[in-house]
């Protein structure tokens, strides 16, 4: 918020002598960063790639993007990240959440393969026009980009540009912040030019100014005028009267994509994902996990009939994607977006018309239908199931948003989030930082962020959505290519179909589905226990690599050694009751450690004279404090599970049995907690209050 304010202000007074102030500010921030990072051992190089300090034209709006290359020590990364985060508080220009800290091995790997597009993009850009601030020029030793890698890079760049386009569209539609809008417009057009030139001429440009210069030579018509205006803008910075983006940019985009595709023999239609079909698509509206109203069902059927009639049963392929892009929370609920690719060349008008009909007539909550062209489908290829194991295409949600924009320049589709502005204030979130937050979320599904605990929250709904979608796609591709194609809409349908098929008939599938549903409803669920099986199944079906270092845990055991630790202080009498209740357990503890926290009564005698078949260990801890006493207990306990119990409690007969069970089922459970009830001893009013108020109850928190 403050950052936006500063940026707005900065743009408004973007002329000398104020510019000098910014320059000094940038310089000072950079100086401080370098000086304080120099002290950290393990840093090999620091590059600066963007922001005004690197020579960009708009003062005050640019962030400082640093790439820090470190040695391959895990500790170094955490340490440098910590230092960087501290620094990022110093200035809003440094983004704390998007840290460009990479190990040297990481860089090498990213250069070898293109799966980590964003990092890759950074390195290439960094190599070309990055400014070395500190250390040795490491990137120089890497080779130039070639062939497929290069084009993948260009396509990848477009994804980001078009997400900006989308943002611009939204902002241009409602938000009156003209300066921001203009800035994005400028960035967008010049970046598109950059990608266009790279694709056409095998010429890599990394400067926006140059890109605009070159683009003028190849383009004509309204787009040239547009670019000329923007060029003029970059000369006269403080008067940013940028024209709106044109509808022609659509053509421009497609041409750029085509140019990139022409040089990419590896991308064909199958890479666009989904299912190639000849005749009919059908849905089944029974056994859904969500509700679709009857009116909507009729409308969907009517639309399918319209496709059949208009395009003469010539559907080329169908893409299915599990995200809902327009409502900002793609993975907390079940959604399905279906993209239909008809045969032959489609005009933009036809697409707009069809998508317009859908948007105005269909008000479905969980099901979205779109029509797209082949080229759009190719730019969508990242949602293909095949890419789960393909190194070439990481999953990026942005591509779809691009697609949505392209298929409806008349804003019919995008009108929707804007409507939500009034009702739910979704627009604000829509183009805030969350837009970028989504990217790692989906990366989790694929592989990389698995090693970053920040994004992993087992049991993740994301993983489960991914799992069911992966099964759905496999079912689709396995069914024959002629005749009716049945698309399972919800996970329940997927589950049932899998149970019927011979290849994916996993016995635990239904239980996993039930737990998944609980998870979706925000309840605690047991789904985590099925994750190893689910991952094994995915590995088997897709033959894909899954970094399971996060999944390393204790081996499953049939029986655990249980140590019960009881700290006590001057409560010899009730301690005996507690011990008696332990001796009466159906699952007798293997060891009981009583930690005497320096009691002055006869605790020692009580413990030593207690013999009901329990193996009791008496430990004296002279330092006062329950934590200290419990830590001493842990050190003296020898079990796999350490159960904490209080001296003022009485355990139920099956207590330990219940506490042990979850540990036997899932190796990832670190803590098991039970319920605490109150018991009535003296019957005072205060005690009654504790019972009535359910003090310490766990399950009703």
């Amino acid at each position: 918020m403050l950052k936006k304010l500063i940026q707005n202000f900065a743009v408004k007074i973007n002329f000398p002598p104020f510019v000098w102030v910014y320059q000094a500010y940038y310089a000072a921030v950079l100086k401080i960063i370098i000086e304080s990072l120099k002290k950290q051992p393990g840093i090999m190089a620091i590059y600066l790639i963007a922001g005004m300090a690197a020579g960009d034209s708009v003062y005050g709006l640019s962030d400082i993007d640093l790439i820090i290359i470190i040695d391959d020590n895990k500790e170094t990364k955490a340490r440098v990240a910590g230092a960087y985060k501290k620094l990022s508080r110093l200035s809003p220009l440094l983004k704390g959440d998007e840290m460009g800290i990479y190990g040297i091995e990481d860089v090498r790997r990213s250069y070898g393969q293109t799966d980590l597009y964003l990092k890759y993009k950074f390195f290439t850009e960094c190599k070309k026009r990055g400014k070395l601030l500190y250390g040795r020029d490491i990137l120089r030793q890497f080779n130039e980009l070639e062939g497929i890698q290069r084009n993948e890079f260009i396509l990848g760049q477009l994804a980001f540009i078009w997400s900006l386009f989308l943002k611009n569209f939204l902002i241009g539609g409602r938000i009156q912040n003209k300066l921001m809008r203009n800035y994005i417009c400028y960035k967008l057009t010049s970046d598109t030019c950059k990608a266009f030139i790279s694709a056409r001429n095998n010429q890599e440009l990394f400067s926006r100014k140059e890109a605009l210069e070159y683009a003028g030579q190849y383009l004509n018509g309204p787009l040239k005028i547009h670019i000329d205006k923007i060029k003029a803008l970059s000369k006269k910075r403080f008067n940013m009267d940028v024209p709106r983006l044109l509808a022609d940019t659509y053509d421009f985009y497609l041409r750029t994509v085509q140019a990139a595709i022409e040089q990419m023999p590896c991308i064909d239609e199958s890479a666009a994902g989904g299912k190639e079909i000849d005749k009919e698509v059908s849905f089944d509206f029974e056994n859904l996990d969500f509700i679709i109203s009857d009116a909507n069902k009729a409308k969907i059927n009517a639309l399918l009939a319209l496709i059949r009639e208009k395009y003469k049963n010539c559907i080329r392929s169908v893409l299915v994607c599990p995200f809902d892009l327009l409502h900002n929370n793609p993975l907390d609920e079940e959604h399905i977006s279906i993209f239909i690719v008809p045969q032959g060349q489609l005009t933009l008008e036809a697409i707009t018309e069809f998508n317009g009909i859908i948007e105005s007539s269909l008000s479905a909550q969980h099901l979205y239908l779109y029509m797209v062209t082949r080229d759009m489908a190719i730019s969508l290829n990242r949602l293909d199931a095949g890419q789960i194991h393909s190194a070439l295409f990481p999953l990026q949600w942005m591509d779809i948003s691009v697609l949505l924009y392209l298929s409806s320049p008349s804003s019919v589709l995008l009108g929707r989030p804007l409507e939500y502005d009034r009702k739910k204030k979704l627009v604000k979130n829509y183009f805030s930082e969350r837009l970028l937050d989504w990217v790692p979320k989906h990366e989790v599904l694929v592989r990389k962020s698995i090693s970053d605990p920040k994004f992993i929250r087992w049991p993740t709904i994301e993983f489960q959505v991914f799992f069911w979608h992966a099964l759905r796609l496999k079912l689709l591709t396995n069914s024959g290519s002629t005749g009716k194609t049945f698309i399972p809409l919800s996970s329940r349908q997927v589950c049932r179909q899998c149970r019927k098929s011979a290849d994916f008939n996993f016995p635990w599938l239904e239980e996993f589905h039930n737990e998944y549903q609980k998870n979706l409803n925000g309840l605690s669920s047991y789904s985590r226990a099925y994750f190893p099986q689910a991952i094994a199944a995915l590995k088997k079906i897709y033959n894909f690599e899954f970094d399971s270092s996060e999944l390393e845990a204790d081996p499953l055991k049939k029986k655990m050694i249980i140590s019960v630790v009881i700290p006590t202080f001057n409560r010899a009498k009730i301690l005996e009751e507690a011990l008696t209740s332990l001796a009466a357990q159906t699952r007798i503890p293997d060891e009981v450690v009583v930690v005497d926290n320096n009691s002055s009564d006869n605790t020692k005698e009580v413990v030593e004279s207690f013999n009901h078949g329990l193996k009791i260990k008496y430990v004296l801890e002279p330092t006062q404090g329950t934590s200290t006493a419990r830590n001493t207990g842990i050190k003296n306990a020898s079990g796999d599970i350490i159960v904490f119990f209080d001296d003022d409690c009485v355990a139920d007969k099956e207590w330990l049995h219940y506490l042990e069970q979850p540990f036997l089922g899932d190796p990832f459970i670190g803590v098991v907690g039970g319920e605490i009830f109150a018991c009535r001893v003296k019957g005072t009013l205060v005690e009654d209050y504790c019972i009535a108020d359910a003090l310490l109850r766990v399950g009703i928190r």
Partner: protein
Amino acid sequence: MISNILLNKGYKGYGKGYVPKKNDSAMIQPFFPTANVAFRKTALDEVGFFDTVCKTSGEDLDLCIRLARTKWELFFEPGATVKHKHRTTLFGLLKQWYGYGNYHPHIFKKHTPRSLEIIFRNRKSERGWSVLRISKILGLPFPLHILIFVTPFHILNLFLILALAALIIKSGGLLILALGMWFAGWIYFSGRAFFQNVILKRNIRWIFYSLLRYILNWAYVLGAFFAGLKIGIISLEVTREETPSA
């Protein structure tokens, strides 16, 4: 610590299964009291043992926060029950609650960056609570650790303080206004429970329970407040807001 147990009372309780691992604020992380909990030894070795700064309470919350930030899962098993003998005297209970408040600010300081954190009821959110962290919103560092729970307890006391101020400056109109607001707030927050328990069920004890809870709230809030001041934190915490339905 105790606010955790109490704040979410009567809300979306959880049944058998994995407990959600919230990471927006450490203060609303679900945890298990040490009276009835089992830890895996490997997990303890990984994240470390109990924090010895927490002498009488709070160590369980601290350990659960640390575990929830790693790969380890928290599991709730309602079948494993123990019966706990509570304090029998008012003084004992007050002392216990003051103690609960005592170590909470330490945990807040340990697990949260410097910020003004406001936690309030939001019935739409998953856990029933929402967290506002000012430094995150502003994108700027905040010089202090401040934790504020916004609950009926605070709001009603605000009106009482206003009434007290009115008494001091001898403004009758303000006094009536403040007391009126207090009464309206009280009716809004617990009038229904009062009607159901006292009028319908003729349970006079309910009044005593409410009073006791009010005193306990004060013990807890003051405990947390003074302990917070000692380590340079302003913490206005609170305990449960719903009245018991005996």
